[in-house]
Each structure stands twice: as C-alpha cells, then as structure tokens.
C-alpha cells in the first residue's frame, strides 16, 4: 500500500455511490416504510388504509377493557411478550458466550493447518436451511423422539421428558441457531491475540485465572461484544424456534410480528409498530454499548 499516495481521492466519492444506493434501498427505505405503515390504519382483510393514526401504538401500550369503554390502563400483554423475549435473548446470549468462548479459544489455539477444519465443522450445519434444522430439532426432542426413546431404553427415565413446547426447547433452538455468530468473532479476536501477553502476565506473577481476567478477556473483549450483538439482536426477533419448539407460554416478539402479516387475521400497522418498538429497543442497547466502549477507549 502506498501510504502517501492521495491520487485515488477524487475517485472516492463516485466509487462510494453504489454503496450508498445499496444502504439506501436495502436498509433505510424498508425502515422508513415500516415507520410510515405503523402510523396507518388497519384494513379489514390485511393491508392498510392511508389514514394517519396512533392506533397501533395505542393498541400496544394501552387497554380500555374488552369493549373499549373503560378508563385507559396499561396493556401488559405485549409488554410481557417483549419482556419474555428480551429475557430469552439474554439467556441465549449468555449461553452462547459461555460455550462459544471456550470453543473459539480451542479452535484458535490449534495448529494453523487444523483451524480451518474446525471452523468448517462449526459452520457445516448452517448450510442447511434454519427451518429444516429447527424442525429436525423438534423431532429429536419430542416425546417419542430419539432422545426420549434412548433415555428410556437405557432406563434413565420411565416417562418421556416433556421437552417440546417449553422454554427449555425454545432456548435450545435459539442457542443452536446462533452459536456460530458468537464463535466466529471471538475466534477472530483470539487468533489475533498475542500470547506473549499471557507469558508477560505469568512472568509478573499472575496466575492463570488472573491472566484470563486481567489480560485475555479485556484484550479480546471487542470480539465478545461483537458476538453478543450478533447473537442478541437476531435472538430477540427470532420466530422459528419459538413457533416450532415453543407453545402459547413461550410466545415471543418475532412470532407476534410474524402473525400480524399473515392472512386476513393480520394487522399490518400493529406489526409495523411492534417492529419499530423492537428496533428502538435494539438501538438503545447498541448505543449504550457504543457509549460504554468509546468511554473506555478514551480513558
């Protein structure tokens, strides 16, 4: 790379145009559309009427009783669903971090030739469609599936474990879906980690645990944060795992939004409003992270 060569500069702007077009068409425009739709009026058989209203947001946060004639109160139904989703996504992120970090560490500390094979093994399942994988998972854990049959065959249990339609099943599905998104960025960070730093810490009387806490974790933290964001955000909006592996009690935001755009039962403005609220939540989390990260960088 020619450090002092600035001759490409006049070209930079025109070359960036396609990127701006892509960002505009595929990112900003859909968000804008969604924002507009969330303020429109629901049409009877799905679709919208061009009447601007706050009805969708009102439906999300406020209840006026079954017939709409009681004093306004907070509507807990959707907030509960949101809260449950956030909680599930947090647990999923924590689990992925707990399992993903040692996995990434293991791969990154293998000899260079075999790392590729390990990464390949990690990513192989993701060549199969998520829907198919989630359905397969359901077959594995259902009452007369191989897991329960196997456990009963070796006499560990007498009744099948009721796994399908539980939070545990949803959690398993989420964890399984998003683990690589944790492993890969952490792997990239650990691979760049300079192991002389660990030697230096040991040389200065740090135990293994202290070295991990004081040196390794802070240095690979950007990789962990990237992994957490990559897992948390899609897990929060996931609908396949909760739909297929969960039941009414495990209903999550993703499924709620999904339903609003299906058939004549749907409510497009309400789905759009729920999406906007979800996005706002995610943005708040990200801004919070970015702030914390930059404050640390400046200190």
């Amino acid at each position, binding site marked *: 790379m020619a450090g002092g060569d600035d001759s490409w500069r006049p070209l930079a702007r025109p070359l960036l145009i396609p990127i701006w077009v892509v960002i505009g068409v595929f990112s900003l425009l859909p968000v804008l559309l969604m924002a507009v739709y969330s303020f429109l009026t629901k049409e009877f058989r799905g679709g919208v009427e061009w009447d601007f209203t706050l009805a969708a947001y009102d439906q999300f946060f406020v209840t006026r009783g079954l017939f709409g004639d009681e004093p306004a109160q907070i509507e807990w139904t959707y907030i509960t669903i949101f809260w449950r989703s956030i909680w599930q996504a947090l647990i999923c992120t924590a689990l992925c971090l707990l399992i993903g970090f040692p996995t990434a560490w293991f791969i990154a500390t293998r000899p260079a030739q075999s790392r590729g094979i390990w990464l390949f093994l990690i990513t192989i399942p993701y060549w199969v469609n998520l829907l198919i994988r989630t359905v397969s998972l359901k077959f594995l854990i259902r009452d007369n599936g191989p897991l329960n049959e196997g456990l009963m065959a070796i006499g560990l249990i007498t009744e099948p474990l009721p796994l399908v339609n539980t939070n545990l099943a949803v959690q398993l599905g989420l964890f399984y879906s998003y683990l690589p998104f944790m492993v890969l960025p952490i792997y990239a960070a650990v691979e760049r980690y300079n192991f002389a730093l660990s030697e230096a810490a040991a040389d200065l009387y*740090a135990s293994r645990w202290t070295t991990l806490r004081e040196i390794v974790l802070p240095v690979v933290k950007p990789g962990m944060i990237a992994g957490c964001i990559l897992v948390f955000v899609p897990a929060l909006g996931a609908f396949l795992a909760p739909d297929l592996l969960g039941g009414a009690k495990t209903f999550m935001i993703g499924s709620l939004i999904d339903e609003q755009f299906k058939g004549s039962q749907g409510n497009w403005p309400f789905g759009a409003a729920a999406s906007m609220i979800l996005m706002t939540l995610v943005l708040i989390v990200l801004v919070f992270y970015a702030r914390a990260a930059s404050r640390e960088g400046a200190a």
Partner: protein
Amino acid sequence: MTAAVHLQDVVKRYGSVTAIHGVSLTIADNEFFTLLGPSGCGKTTLLRMIAGFEAVTAGEIRLFGDDIARLDPNHRPVNTVFQHYALFPHMSVIDNVAFGLKMQGIDLAARRTRAGKMLEMVHLSHFADRMPAQLSGGQQQRVALARALAPAPKVLLLDEPLSALDLKLRQAMRVELKTLQQETGITFIFVTHDQEEALTMSDRIAVMSEGRVQQVGSARDIYETPDNRFVADFIGETNLLEVDVHSVTDGRASMTLPGGHPLTCPSASATPGRHALSIRPERVTIAATGELKATVDRVVYLGTDLQVLSRLADGSPFTIRLQNAARTTIPEAGATIGLHLEEGAARLLAD
C-alpha cells in the same frame, strides 16, 4: 557465595529435534551475563527455560541454590523483557509498570509510587498516562524494562531487547542498560546475536552454537583467546590457517606456516597434528622483513581503517587491517608484501 543462576546439564528436546544439548552454566550475582550466538543456536530456548515458559527435558536450573526447573513462571522471582515488549495494550504505561506489583498484592498507593520511580528511572515520567500504542518503539522498550524491574526481581532476563531499535538508539540504550544494571545490582541475563552489543556491555559472555555453549569468558577472553574455531570465527574477523604442529614443548607448540616459515606459539593442550591457527587481522603489520609473504588482491577503504585482502603463498586468503593514519603506507594491488606477526597474534585452536 551461591550463584544467582546455575544450569546443570540442561537439555531441551522438541520431539525429535534437540534444541539444547546439555548446557551447564554458572552466573554470578550482580553479573551482566550475555548469551551470544547465531540465529537458531538456542539462546531464546535457554532463556525461556530459565523464565519457566518452556519445560526442561532434563537437567537442573537453580536460582540462588533452589531448584526452580519445575516451577510455573509466576512462581519464579525472575522477570523478563520480551523481544517485542509484550506491553498490555489495554493498560496505561503506569498500569503496565505497576502490574507485577499489583500481582504481588502491594496496595495501590505503594505501587503507584514505586511504578512512578521506575518510570523516572527510564526517563518516562511524563508518559505515565499514555497507552502503549501511543509510544515510539524506544519508549515502549523502556516501559517494558521498567515493568520488568518494578517488582525488584533477583534476575532479569532480556531477549534481544534492542533488536527493534535503530542504530543510534541502540547504542544509547546499551549505555543505559549497563548503568541500570550497575545501579540496581540485579543479575542480567541478556540474549543477543549482535557481538558488538555483547562485547560492550557484558561482564561475561557465553558463546553458543547449535545448542551448546562453546566458550564462557569476558569479552577480552573470548576475543583474544578463543577456544575453538567457531568462537574465533564468530567473534570479530579472523584469518584461519591450517597448520601442522610437529612438536609441543614447555607449553609452546612448534609449527610450519604456509610458505614454510616456522612459528611457535603458546598452547597448553595442543597435540601434534593438523590444527587451525587464528590470526587477528589487526595484529599483523606489513614489513619487508616479515616472516609471511602475501600478494595483495585489493584494498578496501573503511574510514578509520583499511582492509587489505591478500593471498598467501599457498593461495589461502589472508586479511590485514591497517589504521588509516597519516604515516600508513598503503600497499598496491598486485604487490608482494611481507607480514610480521606481533607477539601473541596467533592462537592455536583446539578445533
């Protein structure tokens, strides 16, 4: 007095490769000791075994009498200055320097004071709050030094700490390191492949080659009285001549130089037979009456010195160094000259 570090028959094998073949060394307290040798001779391996980053395959490592060969690095009162410094990138300079003290459980106020003193010692007080990435290579090097010295180790290990610096800085740091070693009284074990560095700083030098120690001695010892062909050739410039020793009497060996001239030189242990004779280029003068005859090939101008490349009667190359003084007569290429060996210029080598 017990030695600061004592290695006894230390062996290191990596699978089928033997990196260190039974090294024994004794390093005194307060000594500036250097491991010198060409790339791949095992200097780093030896140093890492003393630090505890590599396990010994066999042998003993004693630190002030205690066998430490099987202790983890964090239990050895030895600190290291790493070749590429290995500063903690997420900690400020002062936190880097205070890290060892923190691990020793020293309270915040005390370790800040001590780390501050260390930074003062390496002239970096006003950089205390910078991050390592905001420092130049030379400054990072001094932070690494301060960090390793802060816990007052009994022995400091340095693996080519100056190799990443430019020439001027390297020369300045040599002086600084030596002063620091004398002021602190800490034993330094310094690894380098740069003989000038080794010769200028060390109390004693161990010359290594292929996993073995070839000779241990002061700079003067290894330069003036090399034990073997490798040391003579590796340290400085030398002319190695093949000679026939025909007799040894009273500690003096008699031999015939190429061209037939007889020579005797002191040798404690030589036996009759074919041997290598080392003659330093600067210990030879050009004189018409000289006992060796040579033909000048070329004269190379080196500033303070002139290097005369010549051939002896039997065709073997022979280099002479002349001071570039006003009175020096510079021989012409093609001329035949006489060479006079000063007393003690020639040294008979064991092998």
